[in-house]
């Protein structure tokens, strides 16, 4: 954990530790007996009874598409061959609901012919209808939004949060797949400008991959897309807009490599690279099938967990905690870490003391000290109008430094969520 330096006057150095040189030792997690896939349901309450066209006992093949019955753009591809064991609803945070599909895995992969057939004519529709489920979750959906005009693709060869070396691993060790993936991206999307963001001092040979190589800071929060937009393209994302609105889509290096692999073999690559950090802070690189319960990974790495520890999917700044070791690895899970119960920083009930640490560290220059007062009082409209709630780029640093240990970032997420809900309700009644 990064601590405040003795000289508090200097800003904390949030440098990402460099990736160790040479070959990584990467361990393969054995295919588990059962995997679980999650499909996020649309927010619309009318679709609450949504489900998938599968039931217990149905057989699925590797690469077979599983989609919601109401909305075929919400889909995933089965990373294994096996028999459906259970289809059940499941809940995430801030009102998200999922359909969880559990599959009993067969030892031999049988590859789905429909997917193989479809891979023979790579076009935009293929990307939209199948490839968003690749490991790394390539955001192909962005090309099909209304008024979308995407002119730049940015491939992230840097990891955006701490405790993850996944993207840098891919950059160093899956060059072939990356190159094929970059070619594939050009074919599928027709976008000419492909930028590869790499850590400073990266291998100069990366230019051979066929993308414009640009070095970026590996200092948090400069690795977040909104700030990369500034560093790379000199563009500021206006509040309430996304990078996609400005014509740039971010792909993880892993997504591109997975695309390359899928194009080469005509098969769905159901494996994911993950950085797993145990309680002793040692990081392990592993590959696992999508849908593997995190427990299997812990078992293989001999990471012990106890009651009241914390398991986090993603990084320490932006990840999310899960409540069970049954939680499956998702296509976009780059990192998993376990925090011992004794190392979980307690939050407190103190009010803001106006120390200003949050204001100084906020990369979006938000007056967080004032914002948090309005959010605590539930006055979300004023928080947005007067104190720039929508400018927040979700880096979490304000909570990280808060002297009063207020869960500021949680209030911010809640505020944004509540406003969205209120506006949706207004729109429905209008």
């Amino acid at each position, binding site marked *: *954990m*990064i*601590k*405040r330096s003795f*000289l*508090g*006057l*200097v800003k*904390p150095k949030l440098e990402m530790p460099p990736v160790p040189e040479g070959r990584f030792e990467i361990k393969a997690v054995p295919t588990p007996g059962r995997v679980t896939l999650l499909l996020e349901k649309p927010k619309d309450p009318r679709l609450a009874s949504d489900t998938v066209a599968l039931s217990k006992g149905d057989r699925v093949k590797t690469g077979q598409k599983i989609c919601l019955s109401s909305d075929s753009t919400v889909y995933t591809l089965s990373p294994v061959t096996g028999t459906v064991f259970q289809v059940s609803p499941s809940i995430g945070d801030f009102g998200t609901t999922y359909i969880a599909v559990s599959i009993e895995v067969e030892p031999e992969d049988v590859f789905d012919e429909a997917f193989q057939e479809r891979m023979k004519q790579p076009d935009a529709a293929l990307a939209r209808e199948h490839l968003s489920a690749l490991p790394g979750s390539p955001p192909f959906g962005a090309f099909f939004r209304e008024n979308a005009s995407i002119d730049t693709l940015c491939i992230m060869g840097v990891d955006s949060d*701490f405790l993850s070396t996944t993207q840098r691993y891919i950059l160093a060790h899956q060059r072939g797949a990356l190159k094929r993936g970059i070619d594939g991206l050009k074919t599928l999307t027709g976008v000419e400008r492909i930028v590869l963001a790499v850590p400073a001092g990266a291998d100069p040979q990366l230019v051979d991959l066929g993308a414009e190589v640009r070095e970026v800071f590996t200092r948090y929060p400069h690795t977040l897309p*909104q700030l990369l937009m500034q560093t790379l393209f000199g563009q*500021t994302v*206006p*509040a309430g807009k996304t990078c996609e609105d400005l014509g740039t889509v971010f792909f993880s290096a892993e997504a591109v490599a997975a695309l390359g692999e899928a194009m080469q073999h005509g098969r769905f690559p159901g494996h994911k690279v993950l950085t797993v950090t145990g309680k002793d802070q040692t990081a392990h690189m592993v590959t696992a099938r999508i849908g593997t319960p995190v427990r299997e990974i812990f078992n293989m790495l001999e990471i012990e967990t*106890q*009651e*009241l520890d*914390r*398991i*986090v999917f993603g990084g*320490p*700044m932006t*990840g*999310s*905690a*899960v*409540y*069970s*070791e*049954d939680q499956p690895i998702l296509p976009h899970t780059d990192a998993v870490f376990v925090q011992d*119960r004794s190392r*979980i*920083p307690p939050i407190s009930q*103190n*009010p803001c*003391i*106006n*120390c*200003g*640490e949050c*204001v*100084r560290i906020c990369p*979006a*220059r*938000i*007056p967080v*000290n004032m914002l948090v007062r309005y959010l605590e009082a539930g006055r979300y409209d004023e928080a947005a109008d007067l104190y*720039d709630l929508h*400018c927040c*780029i979700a880096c*979490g640093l304000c*909570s*990280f430094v808060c*002297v*009063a*240990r207020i*869960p500021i*970032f*949680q209030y911010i*997420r809640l505020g944004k969520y509540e406003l969205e809900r209120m506006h949706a309700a207004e729109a429905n009644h209008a």
Partner: protein
Amino acid sequence: MPDSKKFIVSHAPFWHDGSHITTRNYHTLLAALPAVIFGMIQYGMPAVGVVSLAVSSAMIWEYLLNRITRQPVTIGDGNAALIGLLFAMLLPATSPWWMVITGTLVAILVGKEIYGGIGGNPFHPTLVAVAILMLSWKDLFDFDAALVDYEFDFAVAYPLAALKHFGAWAVEGFTPGGLLMGNQIGGIGSTFGLGIVAGGIYLALRGIIRWEISVSFLAGVFITALIFNLADGARYAGPLFHLFTGYTLIGAFFFATEDSSSPVNFIPMLIYGAGGGILTVLIRNIGVYLDGVVFALLIMNIANPLLDKLRPKALGKVI
């Protein structure tokens, strides 16, 4: 699924840099110690008595008010102790016991708790108490009278009083070096300039106080005093005299910088500090009070919410 292990689910971020309100307060107490210990040595047991009484009574008041208002008990965070200690540092060593405990009651009750406790106070709680006592019992802050029984190897005359009553020539005997080393009478913890500056620098380096405020406050005092001094050197003392006497240094490092009542943005901090410094010298030189720090800072506290509206444009803000 038979998974009985319960994990902690909470929201990102999952790391914290380890800072804490309590640590901040204890470090501030620590930074104040050199000046306090010097005062205790200089004034002996009466000073020890005032400091002990102020710190303990402030904590007791806070405890009682916490209980009465049924709030969580917060004396552990060190803030009440700090308010009490800072109060004692401004008092003459011979202050009567009833004044000390009245002062801490006012500081904790009127200065802090009625606004909802730490972080809610628009003014520095200690300054509120000192201002009310100064207005109620003016004589108690007459350092010349209060400390008349002491004998030192330097002039037992409150420098600011000498200046006000007799003009600049009367304070020619005070050298800046002597003042900085505490060769002057005054509040228990406010005369040993060197100790206060050392404590202040410690706090600034640790990032506990905002150095911009202290520096701009001192600059405000210096420049304003210099202008007066250049205009009429016989009536108005020089800038160094103003820097090292009265409550200037303790004000700059321990009062102006209180978190809740001061701004956090860069330009507002400069305006706030400089404004406090300018007002201090104006009150000293042309006002009726001997020392202007207390009132100058209270006035700037009022301006604080307004000042902090001057802030940089947020990232991607569309107007």
